[in-house]
């Protein structure tokens, strides 16, 4: 993440914290930003104003996993490293064997892999729990 982007993100976080000060501030970074960078940058504003950090969630697209793993493995591992939760999205669209392959591949890079489907709602309650409790 570049310096000016980091600065504008921190400025934005502090501004939102002051007003409207929501219960939750969701950040959807560009795909090129990895989790450790986000951890560092989002922590900077705490020198000025008080807020809580985390969880840091990484989403892995279930149907597109193989292609991303083949071509963009360093990026995906950069998202995963330092994440509190790794979730496979669109889990309802892939077969059980494919899901097992994904879990096998990612084991070793993260503690656990959550199966998620926005369409069926599966896994969402678990994410809400983590978001509330982390």
């Amino acid at each position, binding site marked *: *993440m570049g310096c000016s982007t980091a600065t504008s993100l921190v400025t934005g976080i502090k501004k939102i914290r002051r007003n409207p000060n929501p219960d939750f*501030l969701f*950040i959807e970074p560009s795909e090129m930003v990895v989790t450790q960078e986000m951890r560092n940058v*989002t922590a900077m504003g705490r020198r000025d104003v008080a807020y*809580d950090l985390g969880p840091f969630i990484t989403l892995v*697209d279930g149907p597109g996993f193989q292609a991303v793993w083949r071509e963009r493995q360093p990026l995906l591992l950069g998202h995963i490293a330092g994440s509190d939760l790794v979730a496979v999205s669109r889990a309802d669209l892939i077969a059980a064997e494919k899901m097992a392959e994904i879990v096998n591949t990612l084991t070793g890079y993260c503690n656990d892999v959550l199966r998620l489907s926005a369409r069926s709602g599966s896994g969402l309650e678990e994410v809400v729990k983590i*978001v509330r409790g982390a």
Partner: protein
Amino acid sequence: MKIVTIAGVQGSGKTTLIRELIALLGAQGSRAAVIVNEEGEEPYAQSFLEAQGVEIFQIRGG
């Protein structure tokens, strides 16, 4: 305020997940805001933002 970050490659469903979480948390009485990079996967519909009382902020390049 608690910061929740959702990482992932484009098309991994970040926007969809954030929308779902905002709706579920909103139903439990929590207020949310969103910071999205300018290449956000899909726009948040104005009707959704108004219904959920969500403020959205965009940053360039991030």
